[in-house]
Structures are given as structure tokens and as C-alpha cells.
């Protein structure tokens, strides 16, 4: 599980780094909205990219509770584990 979480965290950070709107260095502690300046739509669209890579869907109610990259990675890893 921890390896999966690490791999998912890496995938999230790599995907964000490739996003032209993101100019700052992204770490696990990065707060997605406040630190990266993404609006709600940009966050949902970015999550869609990751969903395809992992073949999971993140329900919007779960997304509402996510603040940091680590939160997102944990959520994705959990969804992937039960998929």
C-alpha cells in the first residue's frame, strides 16, 4: 500500500508539473488551491487527467475534502485499492 501511495503521489506531482498553469515546485505538502492558484474548474479538470491514468473516478464529494497533494494521493490510492 505504501509503495502504491508513493507511486500515486509521484504521478500526481508529475502530472501537475506538466500543467502549463503550474509554475511552482509541487511537493506532497503543497495546498492545491491556495499554493497553485488553481480555480475549482482547473482542479476538477486536472483530477480528470489523473483519473484516466489510474482508471478510477474521484467523486466530487471526496474532492471537496482534499487540500494537499498528499490528501489527493491518499484518496486516489484508496480508490485504486478497491477498484
Amino acid at each position, binding site marked *: 500500500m505504501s509503495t502504491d501511495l508513493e507511486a500515486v503521489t509521484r504521478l500526481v506531482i508529475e502530472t501537475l508539473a506538466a500543467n502549463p*498553469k503550474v509554475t511552482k515546485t509541487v511537493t506532497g505538502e503543497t495546498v492545491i488551491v491556495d499554493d497553485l492558484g488553481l*480555480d*475549482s*474548474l*482547473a482542479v*476538477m*479538470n486536472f483530477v*480528470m487527467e489523473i483519473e484516466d491514468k489510474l*482508471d*478510477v*473516478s474521484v*467523486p*466530487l*464529494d471526496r474532492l471537496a475534502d482534499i487540500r494537499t497533494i498528499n490528501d489527493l494521493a491518499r484518496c486516489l490510492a484508496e480508490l485504486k485499492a478497491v*477498484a
Partner: protein
Amino acid sequence: MSILAKFSALAEARESLQHVGRDPFRLVIEQALSATEGVIDGQPVLLFGTNNYLGLSQDPACLAASAEAVREHGSGTTGSRIANGTYGLHGRLEAELADFYGRRSCMVFTTGYQANLGMLSVLAGKDDTLLIDADSHASIYDGCRLSQAQVVRFRHNDPDDLYKRLRRLGDTPGSKLVVTEGIYSMLGDSAPLAEIAAVKRETGAYLLVDEAHSFGVLGETGRGLAEAAGVEADVDFIVGTFSKSLGSVGGYCVSDHPGFDILRVTCRPYMFTASLPPAVIASTRAALARLRESPELRQHLWTNAHRLHAGLRAAGFEVGPQVSPIVSVAMPDIPAAVAFWNQLLARGIYVNLSLPPATPDERPLLRSSVTASHKPEQVDAAIAAFVATAEALGLQQPALVD
């Protein structure tokens, strides 16, 4: 810290728009002279930013019906549908809408927003899943929030992505409700409804279509995209509004579901708000009758839609992917969009300024819409104003298609 401090970044962004010109969010239409002409800041303008698709907001028969109803039944019902606000008029409008759609049942809501809020929240309970198009209107997103269901977003107008997400749900218990719109309000594009209906059939999901912008606009009789796509039997719930083609205000849902009536005592946005006033019900009924008996209104609308879309496209503007009564022009950035919008207004053309994140991609839009009432020369005047403004701002090419 102020309770409004959380909006300080937005307030700053809004303040910065003041330097470019008039604040689009403080615009006041002082008078609507007709379906196509109004007065803004004491100046006459051509209205190309309404949703008055059939031009019925100023229809003499609708106005007369409304005036008669207010005298006969009073200015308001002072109550909710479930307690003390159901008049005979509400029942008659519901029966007429059900008849128009050939459906068993209809419920009328006080606004279109509440119709989506009510239907999504009441249909999808905590063990169910809502699957909504990514570009859905705010009322659909808010309906999702009010429901306790799991909410999954699929890529805009992408039946394959919808299918993939339904497959991912596997044998998750509970009902699945797919939500799409007939015409999307920002770009005027339609859902590929036949393909979405096929996915719905294959997966055993339910389908709700919001025909807010397509009611009175699409389909042989004006019933919307479900009629135009020939899949009415696959659409379990149709939601719509009176505030566009019917020129008043209010929302509705029609369905053939045999148990539909239970929603009258379970749907909170239906139950706990004042019902529509008699004058609104009366003009809405008259407008529905006009829609049914005057298909030429729809023909005029489409003639104008083609004229505006083709004219702007020929002038080099980047317009939406499909011809529709909504014709949106993409702008390179917010300052350019605000400046363009201001200059159009100075030239006597009122359109809507749509800014991200309300727009589908990162770019702002100048959103125009035509009505059945526009005359060809009014449409041509709007196109000429777009061209002159682009030249004045030195924007002839940047925002444009090849």
C-alpha cells in the same frame, strides 16, 4: 478578520476590471422596449444578450393573459405548493406541459434553478450515483451538492468517457442517474444524446436532460434535443425553464415514471418556497400555446442563428462548434474581452461577457444570442459592430480561426 475576507482575491480581480471600462456585473437594462431593443445608460441598444429565443417576453397575447390574471387572482400566492400556494392555474399549466411532451406527469417549480436543484437532490439519494457532464450549469452542480449521492463528472459531450465511468462503478449498489443538457449555455453546443441514450440503455442507468436552452428551440415541435435526436423514450426526466423560450420565469420537470407524484412531498426545493404568482403562470401558459401554434417562430430563430454564426465566422471570429441561437466568440484574455464588450455597448450592441471559470476553457467569451424577433438588418448591425470593434482594438486576427 472580516467574514467576507475569503472573497478578497475576487474583489481585487473585480476592482481591476473597473480600469478597463464599465463593470459588466453592474450593468442595468433600464428598459426593454421590445424583445430586441432596450435602453442602457439612456442610450438605445440592440439586445443580443438575452435568452428570449422566441421573443415571447413582449408578446401581446402573453401580456394580456398576465394582466388579466393579476387582476383576477392577485399579485402572489403567498404560499408554497404543498401548504397553501397551489391554485387551479398551477395544475392547468402542469397538465398542458405534460400534454405537450406526451408524458404522464409534470411538476412546476418557482425557477429553473430550483427545478434542477430539486430533481437532482430528490432523485439521487445517498446510495445512488449522479453522473454529470463536466460543463454542467451551476444549478446542476448545486443540485448535486444538495443530494447526498456520490457525484461523478464525465468529460463534456463524451459518451465513451461516460461509459468508462459507469463501468468503473461496477456493481456498486444504487441507481445511476446521468445528467446532460440539451444546449450548453456558453458555446451553444448540443449533447450527442443518441449516443448517451445508448450508454444509458446498455448500463441500466436513468437519464435526465435539462432542456433549458433547447425547449422551444430544437425538435420538430420544439420539445427539445430529446425530440430532435429521436430518443424521447430513453429520457426518464426532462427538466426545463420558462425563463427562456417562454419569456417568463419558472421551471418544470416532466416524466412518465408511474411513481412521480411522490416527489411533491419529498422534493424540498419544490415544497419549501412560494409558488409562482398567477401573472407568471398565465403568461407562461399563453407562451406555451404560442410555441405550439407558431412553428414559424422557431424558423425565424434559426434563420437568425445561421445569419449571426455565418457572419461572425466569415469575419474571422472564432465561434462555437455548432450553429445555435447562442453564438459565442472566444477572446484571448480578460482585459481584451472587457474592452471588446465595452466597445460593443458603446456601438449600441449588448451581448454577455462570460469569464472563466464559468466558461468551458480558460478563455473569456462574448456570448451573443438571437431571438425569433431580430430583423436581418439588426443581425447585420451586430456583425458590423463586432468587426469595427476588432479593428479598433487591433484584434482582427489574434482570437480568430483560419
